[in-house]
């Protein structure tokens, strides 16, 4: 098991644990990029998905947007944005947000559409305002699916934020890109392991959030 030896060598080297190129610093950068991109993508995708899903309009337009967003190659977009805007945070955020908006948008729309219409009609019959129906009836029922959309967006961002290192930013991709250029596989494999572990932690976090946030009545169905 060559890979395991690399992993072991990487993590047991104390030089990798402190300083600006240490694991804690790189991990913090990676988490920061991920949270910022996810927050931006959610700020764009959630409201549009909720409203279009509530009124049941624009499904075709949304699937077009989703296909277009997915068709744009993130890596290419990153390099393109860097040539256009120079090095910095913005050229990295744009491809990550473009990548993350479609799953959030489409799942939110789909989640709202799949809500059982009878409680919605009952709420309307009781004279509830449309916005209250949206937030107090539809949203709680749609929440598990909405969370799954946010989850796949988050995992794709964690995975793609690695390429930010190619345009001279930090994050865990630093180890992979530097390692590849220095032909230092220990570093490369160590970085890859860290990213994979972070992705799995994200998966677990969303599972935990779903346990807490989803109402037991919805979960049972």
């Amino acid at each position, binding site marked *: 098991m060559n890979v395991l030896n690399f992993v072991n060598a990487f993590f047991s080297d104390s030089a990798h644990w402190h300083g600006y190129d240490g694991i804690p610093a790189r991990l913090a950068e990676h988490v920061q990029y991920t949270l910022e991109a996810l927050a931006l993508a959610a700020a764009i995708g959630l409201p549009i998905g909720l409203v279009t899903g509530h009124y049941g309009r624009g499904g075709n337009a949304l699937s077009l947007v989703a296909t277009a967003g997915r*068709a*744009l*190659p993130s890596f*290419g977009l990153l390099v*393109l944005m860097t040539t256009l805007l120079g090095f910095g945070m913005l050229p990295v955020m744009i491809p990550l947000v473009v990548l993350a908006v479609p799953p959030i948008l489409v*799942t939110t729309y*789909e989640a709202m559409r799949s809500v059982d219409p009878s409680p919605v009609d009952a709420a309307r019959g009781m004279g509830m305002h449309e916005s209250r129906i949206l937030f107090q009836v539809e949203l709680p029922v749609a929440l598990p699916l909405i969370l799954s959309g946010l989850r796949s967006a988050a995992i794709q961002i964690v995975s793609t934020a690695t390429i930010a290192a190619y345009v001279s930013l930090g994050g865990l991709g630093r180890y992979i890109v530097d390692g590849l250029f220095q032909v230092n596989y220990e570093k490369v*494999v160590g*970085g890859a392991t860290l*990213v994979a572990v972070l992705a799995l932690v994200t998966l677990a976090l969303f599972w935990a959030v779903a346990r807490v946030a989803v109402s037991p009545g919805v979960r049972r169905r």
Partner: protein
Amino acid sequence: MSDYLHDFFDIPSDLQHSWIGLVGLHLREALLPVAAGLLLALPLAQLCVRFRWLYPPVLGVTTVLYAIPSLAFFVVLIDYTGQTELTVMIPLAVYSLVVLVPAIVDGVRSVPQETLSAATAMGFGPVRRYLQVQLPIAVPAIIAGLRVATVSSISLVSVGMLIGNQGALGNLLHDAQMYNRPELTWNSVITTALLAILVDALLVLVRVLLTPWMPSGTAGREQAPALKDAAR
């Protein structure tokens, strides 16, 4: 203008391909894995439909596999398959498998019980019933899964550039920086996006041809699984 177009398609010789050659290479690197994924997913999904207890663990394993970032996946494989096309294609095949298994299982399971009973009453055996009734009815769901798998596969091939320049159209990105020719970056992004959109449209066409009983537009029930899978 014509000068610019000339530069646009003037591919540096170190890439060892013309523009069309790169397109062909890109399609091969993106589509072979999806085909391999489909080939593996069909029997695996059938097993999951047949033995219900098998589905949750399979779904769990595939979700975890999907969470492994492509670049990390490529890099770990280098140790076994070197900086070759295969290193790029194996992860793409795994991702396709991950998208396709749930799509096929959901599709096959969505066949109404009455339809199955009718087929049995007409004397269909299990194999014929699967091939001639369940699979055709599952086609929209399978194609929806294939669309997601191919489009992301085409997009991900570019990252292969970091693995010994195995990124087909993505390799243009490297040359664009090396020779300071930004138009090559545009070429890479636009061509890759167009390829993805074209292949996606082709798959929609295949779906329309394979399901003559369905309305040809995206109207109706078919919208739901397509959107659901687009979200994966």
